[in-house]
């Protein structure tokens, strides 16, 4: 599982404070803590706290890559903010994200190509959030078709079915899991799949438990990557165990330690 740490996000108070004071130490500690906990990549998001994301995004990227060479996942709904980040990124990058809207794809696919970045395509459009599996697959097909037409290889693309909170759209969760499995059949080679895990428990009380239970189900459905909190040890232990049960790693009594040794 390719793990993207979610904690460098202006919606968290420590990062909001770091942005306000331009205190790079807070960001760098947050980056290193996530890497030590097993993150393969780090999501970078200015969030609502940012007065000027066009300045803050490049700053967050610069201070993060001072301490790690892990992949950076540039998280913004504004292509200009993404581009400002790509311009200063030395590490590998993932654009997070494009919707299935043509006008968005027309900007972000060329950017991904220009900066040799991977791209997350989220199955949502200006018409709103899809309500079932078929609508999600239709939007995914639109993203794949346009990427193919513009010469972005499938290997550079992640598809995100957009996870809904269980307390908002309980009737959709099973379909979201099925969507993950069916994304893999949309192209050859298969597109990679990703989810923003914490959405599943938004507004709920037992967040960590809901997160790790859903992640297990998603992994069993073929999920390749997740944006999550790697410092949640119970979550990480559950993920390692789920992958073990799916025969992705060889069992030994110390399999949790073995997984972490291999990071």
């Amino acid at each position, binding site marked *: 599982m390719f793990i993207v740490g979610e904690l460098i996000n202006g919606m968290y108070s420590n990062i909001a404070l770091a942005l306000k004071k331009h205190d790079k130490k807070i960001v760098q500690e947050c980056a290193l803590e996530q890497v030590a906990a097993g993150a393969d990549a780090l999501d970078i998001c200015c969030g609502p706290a940012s007065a000027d994301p066009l300045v803050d995004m490049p700053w967050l990227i610069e201070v993060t890559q001072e301490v790690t060479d892990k992949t950076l996942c540039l998280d913004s709904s504004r292509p200009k903010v993404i581009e400002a980040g790509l311009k200063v990124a030395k590490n590998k990058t993932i654009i997070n994200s494009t919707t299935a809207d043509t006008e968005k794809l027309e900007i972000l696919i060329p950017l991904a190509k220009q900066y040799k970045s991977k791209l997350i395509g989220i199955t949502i459009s200006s018409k709103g959030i899809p309500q079932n599996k078929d609508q999600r697959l239709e939007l995914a097909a639109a993203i794949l078709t346009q990427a193919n037409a513009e010469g972005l290889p499938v290997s550079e693309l992640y598809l995100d079915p957009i996870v809904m909170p269980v307390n908002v759209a309980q009737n959709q969760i099973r379909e979201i899991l099925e969507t993950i499995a069916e994304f893999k059949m949309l192209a050859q080679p298969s597109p990679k799949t990703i989810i923003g895990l914490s959405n599943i428990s938004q507004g709920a009380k037992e967040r960590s438990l809901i997160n790790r239970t859903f992640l297990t189900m998603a992994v069993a459905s073929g999920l390749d990557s997740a944006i999550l909190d790697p410092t949640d040890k119970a979550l990480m232990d559950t993920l390692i165990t789920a992958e073990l049960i799916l025969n992705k*790693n*060889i*069992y*030994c*009594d*110390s399999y949790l*330690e*073995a997984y972490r*040794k*291999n990071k």
Partner: protein
Amino acid sequence: METPLALEKWPGIISTVTIGAKKEEGGSRSGIVNIGGQHTMPLLFKEGDIPNQPRIAFEIWDIAPLDFDEELIGAYGKAIMDPFSWADICVNEYKAQLLCLKMQGAHPDFGDKNAKDAAKFISTLLGRVKVPLIITGSGDDAKDNLIMPACSEAAKGERCLIGCAVQDNYKTLTASALADGHSIIAESPIDINIAKQLNILISDMGLNLERIVINPTIGALGYGLEYAYSIMERARLAALSGDKTLASPFICFVGQEAWRAKESKISPEQGIIWETLTATSLIQSGADILVMRHPKAAQKVNNYIETLFKSR
């Protein structure tokens, strides 16, 4: 139209383990032996780098091999009754580049040699032959915990491979390897889960994973060879996929298993064939060191390796 080769690109690599240290490295060996370092499955030269050939280690004991098959004793002649002459013949006559010494004489049923005498034997042997050395205990855990630290210390700086650590008895040997600069053989009973666990336990004591050689325990042809083969193959696939805890070279004790088979006792030729075929099969599943007994079998396997590696 020519069918293109389907080549895999592996993220993992097998550790390179060096056995032996020359004078400038603090030892007294005339040469060193490197094993491991593969970036692909066995013999797939077009797919990835295979920097080192499998190596044959001649098995010798610290006492006369009284329970050896007559054919084996005959192959070495009377000299085999003296361990030092036995070692000389392996090196001088059969051009052994690696010796695997079993301290059988320390076993309570085979002379019960004490730690001091065991250490003295090692010192004398190191003075007599100059090829790199593998040193294994007698197989009696309690006794080996007494003699192996002394043997290890007597060979300090010679970068030997010492063994065999097992899941229930690895701490003493690991501490010795750490203290005296040796690498270690980690033995598991044809069990990939225990092989992985033991590597983790040893590395937790501070000995790098890069200084471990796995003894997967093998069966001879007709006695579970294919079981060992599949365990080795599975471990190698996991290692090449990125599992560092299984990315160790393999040592296979071919001679002792092959000559135990009743089929190898039917005729001298058949025993040699049995040992040869067991070894060549294991080379195809990734064996890095083959510990062998009969010089003719060793010669045949050596020719086999040379032929295979010509196409590299």
